[in-house]
């Protein structure tokens, strides 16, 4: 019998230059360990060429990744998990970002990182897909946006 339900261990977004743009952990690890993992994985994925499969065995886990424009989206899942559906988790997330930002690009995620996190939280909790309907997930974010000014605004204030 399979020991685990479908579960994502962590999600990393990073640029082609290897700059980390978003990290979401669904298992508890010390910071030092996280940093090490990030370094290792970014290096593994960036060194793969285009014709290869989207799956890499990594320790006991499997990495499932896909590149969208300048950004790599990478999920670590259990070895027994459904790889194809994980690819579509990534795609659905990109769609959600796209719907929210309108043609999302790397800069959107850099400047509105908190939004990228909120959208992810609406979609996935504790490594499990919560809401697969695009409409419901985006609506939740938009509702909360009614009151909120963007980070961009105050990042652009002179203090920094």
């Amino acid at each position, binding site marked *: 019998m399979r020991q685990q339900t479908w579960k994502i261990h962590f999600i990393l977004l990073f640029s082609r230059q290897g700059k980390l743009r978003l990290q979401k952990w669904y298992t508890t690890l010390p910071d030092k360990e996280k940093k090490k993992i990030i370094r290792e994985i970014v290096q593994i994925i960036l060194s793969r060429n285009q*014709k290869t499969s989207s799956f890499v065995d990594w320790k006991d886990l499997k990495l499932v990744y896909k590149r969208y424009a300048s950004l790599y989206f990478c999920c670590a899942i259990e070895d027994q998990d459904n790889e194809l559906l994980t690819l579509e988790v990534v795609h659905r997330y990109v769609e959600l970002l796209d719907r929210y930002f309108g043609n999302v690009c790397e800069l959107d995620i850099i400047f509105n990182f908190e939004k990228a996190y909120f959208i992810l939280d609406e979609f996935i909790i504790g490594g499990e897909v919560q809401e697969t309907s695009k409409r419901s997930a985006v609506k939740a974010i938009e509702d909360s946006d009614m009151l909120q000014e963007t980070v961009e605004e105050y990042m652009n204030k002179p203090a920094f």
Partner: protein
Amino acid sequence: MCVLLISGKSKEAEIKRINKELANIRSKFKGDKALDGYSKKKYVCKLLFIFLLGHDIDFGHMEAVNLLSSNRYTEKQIGYLFISVLVNSNSELIRLINNAIKNDLASRNPTFMGLALHCIANVGSREMAEAFAGEIPKILVAGDTMDSVKQSAALCLLRLYRTSPDLVPMGDWTSRVVHLLNDQHLGVVTAATSLITTLAQKNPEEFKTSVSLAVSRLSRIVTSASTDLQDYTYYFVPAPWLSVKLLRLLQCYPPPEDPAVRGRLTECLETILNKAQEPPKSKKVQHSNAKNAVLFEAISLIIHHDSEPNLLVRACNQLGQFLQHRETNLRYLALESMCTLASSEFSHEAVKTHIETVINALKTERDVSVRQRAVDLLYAMCDRSNAQQIVAEMLNYLETADYSIREEIVLKVAILAEKYAVDYTWYVDTILNLIRIAGDYVSEEVWYRVIQIVINRDDVQGYAAKTVFEALQAPACHENLVKVGGYILGEFGNLIAGDPRSSPLIQFNLLHSKFHLCSVPTRALLLSTYIKFVNLFPEIKTTIQDVLRSDSQLKNADVELQQRAVEYLRLSTIASTDILATVLEEMPPFPERESSILAKLKKKKGPGTVTDLEEIKKERSSDMNGSAEPTSVNASAVSTPSPSADLLGLGAAPLTNSAPPPSSSGSLLVDVFSDSASAVAPLAPGSDDNFASPDLASSEVVSEEPADTVHDADELFHKFVCKNNGVLFENQLLQIGLKSEFRQNLGRMFIFYGNKTSTQFLNFTPTVICSDDLQSSLNLQTKPVDPTVDGGAQVQQVVNIECVSDFMEAPILNIQFRYGGTFQNLSVKLPITLNKFFQPTEMSSQDFFQRWKQLSNPKQEVQNIFKAKHPMDAEITKAKIIGFGSALLEEVDPNPANFVGAGIIHTKTTQIGCLLRLEPNLQAQMYRLTLRTSKEAVSQRLCELLSEQF
């Protein structure tokens, strides 16, 4: 600023900028003027941003916690985000955070409740579980809870259940959760299915009703038109996530017993297989991915049930189509999925029909991970009928294989060659080929194994001798070949000595021509071969004696080599032919033991994957062929002692010999069957370890671990503090040996029980006992051993160890058995001590003293002054400190006579930095030992343990 940061002019500029901003924020937080919510949020958000750029943040937690109690959604949200990303186990803060969460959960405001639940799920700590595991089930099943909150609650509960299952109370709510599978809202069903699956794995009985509910839900989904489910249809595929989760839930159970449910499920699975054959409704990759994701999950369920031959064969055909698909991902997954199909008796033959395609994949795939899957599949589909072809292809591939997977292929080839060998000459050829092609990747297990099989099978010994002799003719051959060659010729060289082309002298010269290019352990092995030659071929005795007598041997800088040369030379001079023949008698056949190669492969692949496959396959093959595979059974029965067994193998083997074993034959055994490092150079030379004594006469008759030394149990226990291998206990009946390894907070210990008598032990039951206190901090898993231990035999038991938190006591090993008519009961302390989880840390003198100062709280320091129990030798002390597990820091202490060490104790929950300083006083024959760690109990325990060592 962001633009500047990301364009990253230079690392230094970025850091400068960030430090400036951090200082600015710090001053704002510390300022006299209270910040309003907006500014607080702004700065907390900036801190987050800086953290996400990869810089450390050590303040702002308090401000973030303040934001949680704000009534403004946006401020609350940033507060929660900060907490989720930068959790800190500071207990004071956790209390405040939990308070805020409690308020939000009670607020009845769905948005606030959602935020709170997300935060619990994101942090997922034990403290959170303690505070909320009782509350969340109520929210989940309450009639008036909004759908979106239910979804979050279900997954939040799942997260808590995963981290702390003991804290989630089962109760009335469980039956109501099952009925969420019928919920109108597909989002709720999706979330609930994940929760139910995990709960059902642990409590299958309680969630049994979920099977029929899941089947009917699944049936409604797969038969719906592609637009019925509206927003839950993903690229024309109806609810793929939910379908996959339902199929996964069904994999927690055997096929449904109710024929109606079972029929309906079979229909569902057939529909999914049929749909895979339909033309795609969209050209988008998302469509085919989602569709195939469901298909692969359905196939997993079919394999899991393993009861419908028709479905299994259909699944196999479907995967067969994917093997040649243009999408790399599909080829990869098809290979992977077929591996499990190969283990089913119904589809094994169907899988085998694809052998050519798979071999082709091995040759043409450009992606190493796909090739890796192809190797796995070939391994899985291998049986008697195709073993020769598959082994040949794997050997072929090995020549060009990626370095990353070579070792694994070597192991697989070795296993298959042995398992399916009808003709052992083929086996010998295969292994020698392995060494030739990939000698560097041939691990000890593999070449131990070939020697063992040759020794146990008379029919192949002559052939093996001839083949290694020929292989050694190559001008450059791998050192592993020299080892195998040396060993086999030493045992069976006489079988080919009749041929003038391989006369004794030629054999000897051939081996000796490799001698100087080899490493020390191999040279030691060759020296043993030479002394065996003296016995086998008296005519070349003088030649060999000349070699042994040469300065390069007798005065070799390596102690082990020198000792062997001296002893062997002496033995060859003084011992009569009879004694020589007894001492150097042919190796007795090896006792049956589990294949260590298989164990190694399992270890490489992680537990689970290989084990299952292998075991299923074993069962199946006996089902299918009955007793048609006698040789294979035989082959796996004759197995190698795991190399770790050997310290003790020593104790067991000589029992079959009539003459008392001299140390030389003992060390022969050691060097072939143990990792020579531990045999040759004991880590912590204790009183009984100096067998490298120059006194020849005595060293020749004293066996290696003197059986007559009766050790006080505690004394033996302390010996293991600084070393991992050796004999833990010995009396007239029983010898207990240990070999263990530790990494970070994990460890594995092999316990070897040797029956020293010629009578069986009955009802042999070793038990590892942890006190209640110890149980919570040390997690031990053992497998029961065979209750019968034959006379002279040895059984092995593995203990898997996980250190959860620091601990004081040691577990007790209790052994009970019947010997003759009497009942035996004995207990020894198992040397699993806190210092085993040490990881050495090198640091400069400056760092050391800085940290030393930081740990100046009186509770963090423990000191002990004690009298030396052993001679005060600096080198031995150093070895002990290193054996203890810490790094030995040179040139740190201003007084060169002192020793300082540093390391980190790894437990599952924390890591504890440890510093130690040992100051010897030669005149007084005293030591002063000081330990400083961040935890009083740890300082105390380490100090106790280490004080006993000197």
